[in-house]
């Protein structure tokens, strides 16, 4: 019994902060998306905001774009990150530099990475100027449109640049905790490198990798500043139109903005399910 009290006291401050700030904010957002806020006189809740969202082709296009950005970024980043983790596992000349740079990348804010990608890949950016220098192109418009483009290539590049090190570090930590034993046994028993990877290593790191990917997916789905900086003017990512609706002088747009926010929360909520399932699977192996 005394243990339970101790546990409760240890957990209380953190739980209170998260319940009040996070769930409180989410709750108030939910209420306002129903246009229900008695404190300022909005007394009849309604589903108008959701109805107008569901009947707006603009919202569907934004949703589709955001889903595409999140999926593509996550898949590419995960694949590259596992490869990078395998690369950095063993020692080789230059490993210290590569490892340091991977960790350095973690400390660089997303916005800096986004601006760097902008300066590299825009039609008048560094790569375009290199192409012009070597007479591959004659004017900016000849260079492929990678920024402000319908395929959100610049956005995806930025996310890949930032999330690969994130997933790599987590995967490396998992690899270190696991040790080499199972793999070595498999190789001694005659398995090729590919077989050892697919049947021994991959299942072992999968829970950690999945968990990290879930975080990355949710993040890239709900992030604002990168699509705001590098995205096309139409369709825009969901968080961008949510914030734009929220800051619209027309107060009627406010419930819609919050409904969009709830939609973002819902999609990422699904990721929590994936994340916790992945973690529970971690117990095996």
């Amino acid at each position, binding site marked *: 019994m005394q*243990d339970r009290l101790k*546990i409760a006291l*240890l*957990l209380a*401050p*953190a739980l209170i*902060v*998260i319940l009040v*700030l*996070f*769930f*409180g*904010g989410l709750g*108030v*957002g939910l*209420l*306002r998306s129903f246009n229900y*806020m008695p*404190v300022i006189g909005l007394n009849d809740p309604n589903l108008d905001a959701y109805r107008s969202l569901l009947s707006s082709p603009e919202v569907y296009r934004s949703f589709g774009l955001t889903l595409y950005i999140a999926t593509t970024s996550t898949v590419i980043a995960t694949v590259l990150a596992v*490869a990078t983790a395998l*690369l950095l596992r063993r020692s*080789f000349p230059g*490993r210290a530099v590569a490892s340091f*740079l991977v960790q*350095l*990348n*973690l*400390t*660089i*804010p997303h*916005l*800096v*990475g986004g*601006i*760097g990608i902008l*300066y*590299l890949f825009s039609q*008048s*950016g560094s790569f375009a100027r*290199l192409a012009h220098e070597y007479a591959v192109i004659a004017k900016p418009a000849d260079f492929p449109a990678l920024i402000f483009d319908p395929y959100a290539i610049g956005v995806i590049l930025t996310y890949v*640049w930032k999330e690969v090190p994130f997933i790599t570090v987590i995967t490396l*930590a998992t690899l270190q*905790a696991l040790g080499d034993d199972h793999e070595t046994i498999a190789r001694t028993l005659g398995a090729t490198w590919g077989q050892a990877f697919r049947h021994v290593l991959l299942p072992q790191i999968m829970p950690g990798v999945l968990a990290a990917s879930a*975080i990355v997916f949710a993040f890239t789905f*709900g992030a*604002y*500043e990168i699509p705001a*900086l590098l995205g096309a003017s139409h369709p825009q990512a969901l*968080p961008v139109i*949510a*914030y734009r609706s929220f800051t619209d002088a027309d107060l009627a747009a406010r419930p819609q*903005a*919050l409904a969009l*926010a709830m939609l*973002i929360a819902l999609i*990422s*909520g699904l990721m*929590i399910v994936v994340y*916790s399932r992945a*973690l529970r699977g971690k117990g095996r192996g």
Partner: protein
Amino acid sequence: MARLRRVSAVLLIIWLILPLIPLAIWSFAGVWRYPNLLPQIWSYRPWSFALSDQSGVLSSLALTAGIALAVTLISVVIGVPAGRALGLYTFRGKALVELIILAPIIVPGIAVALGLQTVFIGLGLNNTVTGVVLVHLIPTLPYMVLVMAAVFAAYDPLAEDQARSLGASPAQVFRHVTLPAVLPGIVVGAMFTFLVSWGQYILTLTIGGGRVQTLPLIMFQFVVSGRNDITGAIAMIYILPGVLILILTARHLTGRSAALTGFGR
């Protein structure tokens, strides 16, 4: 195989450094127009402007660091006990508690900040530094708890009992037994927390409302107004503290640290 490793490593290193190069060059550019590969005119002007009083960059640097430090401090004080509870004990409802604490890592800040702003306006916390510190706690606290839970999962409380039985007071037990053992975890958690707060944009924009001008907000304003030279200088200043922190804490990130493998037990 070894050659593949070397080539991939070189590509990786180049790729990781690449976006920082134009930023660095822009910070020394006086005039740099298409199609020149390097500035037509080099200049110290971006740096001298960025470091001057009128740009507000240095005071913003202090503000951003102050907020991140406050957030880190609060996260440590609140997160270490919670991590201990989750790492050392099993109890009914633990999965639910874990889910509650994890939720803010997954759910994007914008979903919460828009709703929270109304509450904060009413409480007078909107447009204040206190409000921004509070809202930064949302994405950072879970990371601290996560890391500490993993650390405590690998920690054996037996040493504490032994010290207590030898007559040590709880404060002495904490200072001489617990703290040294979990300090590496606290450092890693604090680093994550600091960096998450350091890089925050939308939360500060929504709750700070333009009055709390952290460095990413200032940098964003300069990049959208086309002042690439100043943006480059600010970007260099902006990544510096992160580099310093990394150098100071590097030894805690590598090595057999259970810190990043999630909740244990």
